[in-house]
Structure formats: structure tokens, C-alpha cells
């Protein structure tokens, strides 16, 4: 165990799944032709004024409830800084009175990560730099698309409670699942509708003060969140082990060379000259509104894992359960189990064989029937996979027994299997010798030969078991 402890806090920006932008009636839509979804308000033209979109508040309340936050009366502030893709050269955001404060998120492992706050704000436009290496420095011209300006965001800030790259991945996946389940955001990291910044520091294990942190930007997938943190952890520990100091800075994750690079050094805290936004009024949702938002909240992933774990006969932290809920196939699993399906086989199929296009259309009754055939010994795992693929290709419906029969899948009787194994050993004495000498890999060639001669009808597991028994 390392003498260093990793400390991570994550800031997540989620674009809200509203019909219109946060302060005007322009469509909130990704991928349109540049500068189509704009008006005087989101362009910040002189004289224009913002009017808060009610649906933004509704979604902020919903997320607050989902993350066990206190949802409080809040106000907007202006965050002042110059940037060409920010139409007013200030961002309307929330500062010391955000809407959601003090909650937590429970990871599938059972660990709870504190949520400091979640606040509403507007997104900026998007710059494209021509010439040079695509950055603003050295560009010959810059173009700005303001379609994204005024798109509503929630910035969700975690406590520095995360202790490993795996936990960070798990946090991001879980938060994404919550955002999607609650209808707050489509949370597509690849389209930028969910963006993650990581604050990473290390400290001697057992210390209760924080080390100097670096903020890492440009994390575009769950995978890059984990990789960037792992890189940053190594970088910081190497520096500290060499007796050097960590410089507080903002770093950019480069997926190409798998490193973080200095973006800017924070010499002083940025001075954004926050002050109360005089063009808006305080947000004071009524108790009735809070109540109805709470009531509208669907079951969240953690609750769904628990709901599935019982009938499946495993714990809520079981990997297959986590994946099934993550893929939103827990309703199918529950229905299949209720229809008499074998729980373990149902989850195996969802985890391994239904992660394909159309997989979510599988009829739970067909799935249940399939697993019953397997358990009764009427189908091998390999055959079941083939039958399932055919059911999915046919729109998810059909009778597994009929499909299996049409394919000529029948359980082999034991003597036929023994004969096939004998033949395989005779045909490849080398492999048999190696296997007997304890080389487990050598079994592969023998099993493969049996599968070939039986045209896939044999159960791979049964063949392996038979070989083991023969070896003694």
C-alpha cells in the first residue's frame, strides 16, 4: 500500500434537457447549423434582459432531491470576465446562495460521496480557431457559434471524498445514471452535454490536511476521467518523492499522449467580481412545487439495484446487478425472473449477450423460457447464446424451444460425449500429455476439438469437467 493517499473532488457540468434555453425562448438543441438558435437575449444585445426558464428550476429541484440536497431559496450572481464566446462578458451563475446544497451520492459499492452544492448557470458559446494548431494562440481567425450560449447548466460539486480513480469512475457513471433517470440531462459526455473537471491532490496517508491540488480539464469520457487521475496521481507522487512541491495549476488532459499538461498557473485566485444579478429576481419555489417535483422523481439507480438484488438472489453491489441497472434493463430482468426464469442465467444474458442493438426489446417471457431450457440441460450455454441472438434478430419475441429445435440443438447424451472426448484425446496425444502435466491451457485445444466434432452441440463446461475427471 502506497504511503500516499489520493484525494479527489469532481465538478460536473450537465446541460439540462429543457426545450428552450435558460433565459430566452430559443431552442436548446445540439448539432444545428451555427448561430441558428439565437436571439437578442442569448446574444446579450444591448437592452436585452434575461427571464428565467421555469423548467430549469424544476430540473434543479429534481436533481437536488435525487442527491439528497437541501433545496433552498437562491439568487443569481454575475461572474465577470472577458471571453469572446461569452456574449455579455459576464456569466449569469449562482454564487453564495445556490439552489441545492449539502447532499450525497451513494456509489454501487455502498460508499457515500458528499455533494457540496449544485447550481444553475448559463453555458457560453463555442469558439473555433482557424489556422495554427487549433488553439486561440497562433490562430489566424476565430469563429464563434452562439447556439450553445444560454443553454442551461447545472454545476454539481462533490466534496473531496473520492479516494481512487475507480471511485471517480464509479461516481461519474452513477451521477450520469441519476441525471438520465431523473430526466435532468441526457448526460452524453461525447457530445459535451456532461463535462467533468477533477481536482486532484495527494497527501501522506493518515494526514488530515489537504495537499496542493491541480484541476484537470478536458475529461471527455468515464475512461479518460480514470486515466487522467491515474496519471496525475503518479505525477504528483513522483514529484513529492523527489522532494519537490506541487504547483497549484489547471492542467489539460491529452488523450493522445495520455498525459496532463499545464494550462495555466493560478498565482492568485481569479477575481470574478461576483455581485447580485440585478436583472433577475430571487428563486423561491413554493412548498407545493417542491412536493410535486419530489413526487415526479422516478426510482433512482440505487433503489433499482436494491429492487433487483432481492429477486436475483445476489447483493445490490453485484457487478451484474450494477450493469443491468446501468443499461436500464432491470425491468426486463425482474419480469423474466417473475416469469420463472433462472435469476443467475437471466443476469448473465443481460450482462454478456444482450448488449447489442435491439437487445433491450427481448421479451421477458422468452428470456425466462430460454433460461429454463438451460437449467434443465436442454441447451448448452453456447447454444443458448445462439438462440438468444436469433430471438433478438426477430424483434425479441419467439419460442426458444422452437428456435433450438430448428437449429438441431439437442442435449447430447452422456455416452456420446464420452466418445467424443476419447476421440479428441486420441487425435491429439500431445495436448493430452501437456494437460496431464498440469498445463491448464492445453485443455483448450481438446475442448475445441470436441466442439468441432459435435458441431457445437457439446457443452464446453461439461467437456472441461470430463477432462478433469479423466486426468484424476
Amino acid at each position, binding site marked *: 500500500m502506497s504511503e500516499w493517499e489520493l484525494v479527489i473532488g469532481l465538478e460536473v457540468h450537465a446541460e439540462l434537457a429543457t426545450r428552450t434555453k435558460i433565459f430566452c425562448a430559443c431552442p436548446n438543441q445540439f448539432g444545428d447549423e451555427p448561430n441558428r438558435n439565437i436571439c*437578442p437575449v442569448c446574444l446579450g*444585445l*444591448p*437592452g*436585452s434582459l434575461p427571464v428565467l426558464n421555469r423548467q430549469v428550476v424544476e430540473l434543479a429541484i429534481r436533481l437536488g432531491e435525487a442527491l439528497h440536497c437541501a433545496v433552498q431559496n437562491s439568487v443569481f450572481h454575475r461572474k465577470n470576465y472577458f471571453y469572446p464566446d461569452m*456574449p455579455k462578458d459576464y456569466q449569469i451563475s449562482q454564487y453564495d446562495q445556490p439552489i441545492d446544497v449539502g447532499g450525497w451520492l451513494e456509489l454501487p459499492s455502498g460508499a457515500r460521496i458528499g455533494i457540496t452544492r449544485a447550481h444553475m448557470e448559463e453555458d457560453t458559446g463555442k469558439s473555433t480557431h482557424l489556422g495554427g494548431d487549433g488553439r486561440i494562440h497562433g490562430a489566424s481567425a476565430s469563429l464563434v457559434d452562439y447556439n450553445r450560449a444560454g443553454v442551461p447548466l447545472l454545476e454539481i460539486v462533490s466534496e473531496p471524498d473520492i479516494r481512487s480513480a475507480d471511485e471517480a469512475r464509479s461516481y461519474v457513471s452513477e451521477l450520469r445514471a441519476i441525471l438520465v433517470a431523473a430526466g435532468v440531462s441526457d448526460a452524453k459526455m461525447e457530445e459535451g452535454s456532461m463535462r467533468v473537471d477533477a481536482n486532484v491532490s495527494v497527501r501522506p496517508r493518515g494526514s488530515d490536511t489537504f495537499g496542493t491540488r491541480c484541476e484537470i480539464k478536458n475529461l471527455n469520457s468515464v475512461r479518460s476521467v480514470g486515466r487522467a487521475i491515474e496519471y496525475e496521481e503518479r505525477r504528483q507522487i513522483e514529484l513529492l518523492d523527489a522532494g519537490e512541491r506541487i504547483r497549484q495549476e489547471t492542467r489539460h488532459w491529452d488523450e493522445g499522449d495520455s498525459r496532463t499538461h499545464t494550462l495555466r498557473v493560478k498565482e492568485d485566485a481569479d477575481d470574478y467580481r461576483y455581485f447580485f444579478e440585478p*436583472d433577475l429576481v430571487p428563486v423561491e419555489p413554493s412548498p407545493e412545487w417542491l412536493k410535486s417535483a419530489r413526487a415526479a422523481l422516478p426510482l433512482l439507480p440505487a433503489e433499482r439495484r436494491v429492487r433487483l438484488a432481492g429477486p436475483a438472489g445476489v447483493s445490490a453491489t453485484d457487478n451484474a446487478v450494477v450493469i443491468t441497472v446501468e443499461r436500464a434493463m432491470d425491468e426486463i430482468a425482474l419480469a423474466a425472473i417473475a416469469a420463472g426464469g433462472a435469476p443467475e442465467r437471466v443476469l448473465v444474458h443481460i450482462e454478456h449477450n444482450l448488449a447489442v442493438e435491439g437487445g433491450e426489446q427481448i421479451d421477458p417471457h422468452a428470456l425466462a423460457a430460454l433460461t429454463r431450457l438451460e437449467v434443465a440441460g436442454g441447451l448448452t450455454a453456447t447454444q443458448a447464446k445462439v438462440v438468444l441472438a436469433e430471438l433478438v434478430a426477430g424483434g425479441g419475441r419467439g419460442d426458444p424451444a422452437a428456435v433450438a429445435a430448428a437449429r438441431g440443438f439437442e442435449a447430447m447424451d452422456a455416452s456420446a460425449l464420452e466418445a467424443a472426448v476419447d476421440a479428441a484425446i486420441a487425435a491429439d496425444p500431445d495436448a493430452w500429455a501437456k494437460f496431464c502435466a498440469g498445463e491448464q491451457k492445453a485443455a483448450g485445444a481438446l475442448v475445441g476439438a470436441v466442439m468441432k466434432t459435435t458441431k457445437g452441440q457439446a457443452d464446453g463446461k461439461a467437456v472441461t469437467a470430463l477432462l478433469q475427471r479423466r486426468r484424476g
Partner: protein
Amino acid sequence: MTDTAAAIAADVRAGRRRALDIVEEHLARIDSREHEIHAFNLVLADRARAAAAEIDRRVAAGDDPGPLAGVPVALKDNLCTRGVPTTCSSKILDGWCPPYDATVVQRLESAGAIAVGKTNLDEFAMGSSTENSAFGPTLNPHDSRRVAGGSSGGSAAAVAAGFAAVGLGSDTGGSIRLPASFCGVVGVKPTYGAVSRYGLVAFASSLDQIGPLTTTVADAAVVLDVIGGHDPMDSTSIPEGLPPVADGLGQGVRGLRIGIVSELCDGIASDVLARVDAAAAALEHAGAHIDKVSVPPVTYGLTAYYLIAPAEASSNLARYDGVRYGLRVDAPDTASMNAATRTAGFGDEVKRRIMLGTYALSAGYYEAYYGKALKVRRLIADAFAVAYQQFDLLLAPTAPTTAFACGSKADPLAMYMTDVCTIPSNLSGHPAISVPFGVGADGLPVGIQVLASPLGEPTMFRAAVALEEAR
């Protein structure tokens, strides 16, 4: 004396006079005197003629174009007008034409009013004399060696000179009432939130209000009724709207308790104070109870204002960066382009206030300056609330003096002092009206201010009528 808005609208609606003739009369007056006054940044002669012809066509067809049918209006050039340049008297908005109309412009035009021009102002409404304009000063129609007052000097002068029956101005610290006082016209700063700010180019958002400048109190009431009321495009617009004002004008002041604010009479020229006394006597004669009242925190109003207004302005004016519209001075990188554009585009007073406001909001200074100013603002509103437990209305001078000579207040602080009597109403968000009430020792107009509690416009206007009748 030129026609009132009420007289014009009555004649046009009844078909007694053509809107086109009225517009031509006003354009003729502009032709004869505009060169000595410089009220306008832009005269919209052809647009006004076309609008008048349309009004006449509608009247002929039996339509009623509305309560301001055929009334020529002068719009302060910080109000957005679709397709018509809106400059704020600044070089930085060079060439910019808004793609939309301000709510007040829309409402005026739907009531039959005709825009004859965009009027001069202190750049971005920052000033008290209309000398801080990138296009040169507006001069006082009563004496062209004197200032018109500001920042709505162009609209006040236009109304005083008969270029338009109605002017619209904006009032952040007195910018409607002060030029009204200097030019001898009526000027109203409504309750904050009574009139939509949508389309008013912001100076200090929490203080700005649009209001009318007219020759009579009754005209101001009609205009206020037209432009006021809730607007879903302005979040700070009062949901229940302003109660109608024009209907109750003639109810008199009998029994009203009116307090003269002692602190707002300190350091005021004696000839102006004499008019305040005369106004009090006139109101008393009309049946009001007059007394003195002390509202101590108003003496800190000026200081608080010159922190809050510049702080908001520093943020509101950040968008003039050369990226999207208006002036751009090219430079090798974005930050230098921003700086070069703003250096060339803004005048000295605007730069001074941007720097003041940026400083007041900076880390380490916020609490001492901006934070403290907000506390003073609250104290002033609370003190007014206490005064309104005893009084229905308050009375004060509008300005410390009559119109001063052009160029006589080169020191910014001396200029800032001009707003000392008007600023408290902006900080508290309360309404106030300036009514011409005689002249000072130099023979120039003196305005008297009537102040009221939030949405107290109907009562405020009754006292204003009483002053007008006693003049």
C-alpha cells in the same frame, strides 16, 4: 406654447386635424432651431411622415389609433428602435441597429404615437448635463449658453423647444427629473419595476427606470398609463402593474399630509429654496397639511450611488468588446483588440465609472465599498418607509440650482453633486416627479419634486397637478 399631447390626440382621433400636419409642424420647428440646441442624434423625418400617413389612413377608415394618436415623441437614444441606429451617444456603438424595439417604443407606437427622432444624452446616460456626449452637448432652449441638464437632456430640450410633444428619458440617479427642471418641463421617474426596461440599454440595472418628459402633468399621466404595466420580458417588472394615473388627476390634495425633506434642502441655492417654500404654500392653500420631515440617511445617498451605479455599469458595459457589434479596433490578439476598442470607443466619464465600479467590486474592497453602499441603500429605503408612516407625499427641490453654464462643472465631483436631491428615489426604488414651478433669480426654470411611496403615482400626480395649477 405648443400643443399638448392630449390636445393633439383628441384632434387626430376626432378627425379635426391630420397627424401628417402635426408632424410637419414639429419638423418645421426642428428645422428652425435644432442647430442651436442639438437635441437629436437622429431626426426620423421620413419615418415620422410615413407613420403619420398611416395614422391618418386609419382615422379615415374609422379606426381609433389610440390615446396618443398622432403625438410626436422624442426617444432618448438609449432606447432600442428596430432598424434605427441606437448609439447611447457613444462611439462604441458605431453602426449598430437593434433588431428589436424596446417595450416602451412598441407600446407608444401601438398607442398611435409617432417617433420623430432619437435624442442626445450623456454617453450611456452617465452625466448630469448632456455634455458627455460623443456627438457634442445639447444646449438649453431657454438659454443656449446653459446646459439642458442630463442625462436625458436631448429629450427634455426637444419637449421644451416644441420639437416633440412627449419625450422619453431614463432616470438612474435623476436623469429625467434634472433636465426636466433645467428645461422647464414635467419629468417622471416611476416606481422601479413600473415600466419595462426591456430594450433600454442598461447603465445601472437596479436603478434605471424609463419615464416621460412632457409639457403638462396630464400628458405625463397619459404616457405613463401607456408605457407602464407588467412586461414578461423584464423579470423586475412588477407583476400587478402600475395603477392607472390619468383618471384620478383632478381629485385635489385636500387632507394629504406632505413633508418637506429637510436634508434635501441643505446646500440648495436660496432662489431655489424660495420656490420650494412657495410650492409648500400653494399646496397648503389647496388644502394639504405641510410639515418638515427628517430622513437622515439620504445624506449618504450620493456616496452610495457612486459605488452601486458604477459597479453595475462596469459589468453592463463589459459586452462592448469589439467582438460582435459596434466599433472594433483591430489588434494582434483578442485581449489587445478588446482594450484598443474600449480605449477608442468610450469617453472619459464612462471610463472613469467603469474603473470606479471595477474597483468597488474587487476582491478585498467589495465589503468596504460595494457591500457598504448596499447597506446604505437599505437604510435609505427604511428611512423613507418611516417617513411615509406620517406623510402621504414628500416635497423637495429637484436640483440645487437652475441650469448652469456650459463647461462650468469640469470637476467630476462638482457635477456629481447636481444629483444630490434626485438620487435617493432611485436608491429606494420610489417614484418622483419634477414639476416646473416658476423661475430662479436668473429667470431660468426651477423644478419642484414630489416624492411618493412605491406605486404611489396616483397620489403623487394629484399633488403635481395642484402645483401646476398654482404656477
